[in-house]
């Protein structure tokens, strides 16, 4: 009850009540899935075909798994969403970005990686799904820095 009240108060204060209804609901099942396969199933994303037009710009080695910078983009015409899945994370689904008219299918974000893992990007374009993947190694740092 407390949480609902706080949410309403916060929403009213910032004037977010109306827009909240129009936003994509946070997909609890997909984000709570413990395997990449389950997460994608919950998102309703069938087997995605590998595509060279989906790009993942990221370092091959991350000095620290707490902050791994990744830049994802798509050259596939009509891309309306990009989904980030980190295979070996406890909850692989990391983010879903929906791009409306006016935004390019491009995002740079810092993610957490528990260990060396494949980072997969699924692109949604014209109802079809495509994927690309890149392995990022996570090291245990030394002291200093």
């Amino acid at each position, binding site marked *: 009850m407390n949480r609902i009240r706080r949410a309403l108060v916060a929403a009213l204060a910032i004037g977010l009540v109306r827009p909240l209804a129009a936003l994509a609901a946070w997909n609890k099942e997909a984000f709570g899935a413990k395997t990449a396969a389950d997460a994608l199933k919950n998102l309703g994303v069938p087997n995605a075909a590998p595509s060279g037009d989906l790009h993942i*710009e*990221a*370092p*091959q*080695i*991350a*000095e*620290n798994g*707490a*902050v*791994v*910078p990744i*830049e994802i983009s798509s050259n596939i015409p009509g891309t309306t969403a990009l989904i980030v899945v980190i295979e070996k994370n406890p909850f692989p689904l990391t983010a879903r970005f929906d791009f409306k008219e006016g935004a390019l299918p491009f995002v*740079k974000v*810092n993610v957490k990686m528990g260990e060396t893992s494949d980072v997969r990007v699924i692109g949604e374009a014209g109802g079809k799904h495509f994927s690309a993947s890149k392995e990022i190694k996570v*090291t*245990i*740092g*030394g*002291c*200093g*820095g």
Partner: protein
Amino acid sequence: MRTAVLAATLVAATAYGQDAAKEIQRYREMVAEGSPAELFELEGETLWKKPQGPKNVSLEQCDLGKGPGVLKGAYAGLPRYFKDADRVMDLETRLLYCMTTLQGRTREEATKRVFGNADHPSEMESLSAYIAGQSRGMKMAPGVSHRKEKQSIELGSALYFHRVGAWDFSCATCHGDEGKRIRMQELPVLYKPEAARAVATSWPAYRVSTSSLVTLQWRMNDCFRQMRTPEPNFGSETTVALIHFITATGAGATYAGPGTKR
């Protein structure tokens, strides 16, 4: 046969090592592009302007070396000698001086919590980020000509090689030879200008592994901790001398603002 295998392994190891170093450099560049350090600069600006202490004044009249309240380029000129305190001071030492003299705060109160954490940065950390950010684009030029500045740099140099503590370590034990590293962290040889320039322009910094803003006083403190020596006093002559030695050796590079570290 054995020599050939050994040679092949060495070549492979070096090649991998170089690739690894390149990828780590890429990691550092990408992380720096999107660094939360600027958020700490915002917080620091608020603290700089906040009236505090028994005298209920802000730090805005604090002289960081360029005149009371002049922030542009101040960080790039530190450490330096200050006549009113008759000693060489780095940024944090000078801030403490202004907190006690301008604001009337006690050293005890002002240094109660100099190193913060992810949930709650310390005043020193936020102020350091803000003031350092005001030296963006300027060339690092700590004081080197005053008699006491020369003594401070010499002291720092001597301390760099002086072995102390339970493990008989000096800074040079880790930072004394090229090509050394601890796990994946390469250890810069700080008495060499090229390495010192890179280091001097990387502080203060947002440390991603702890989600906190770290400063040079913290770095000195933590190095001594890792060397198993007693904890140095905040803003002590020792810490300032070492910082002075490193920044003087690394003078001349352009400062890009608070950095980002692992």
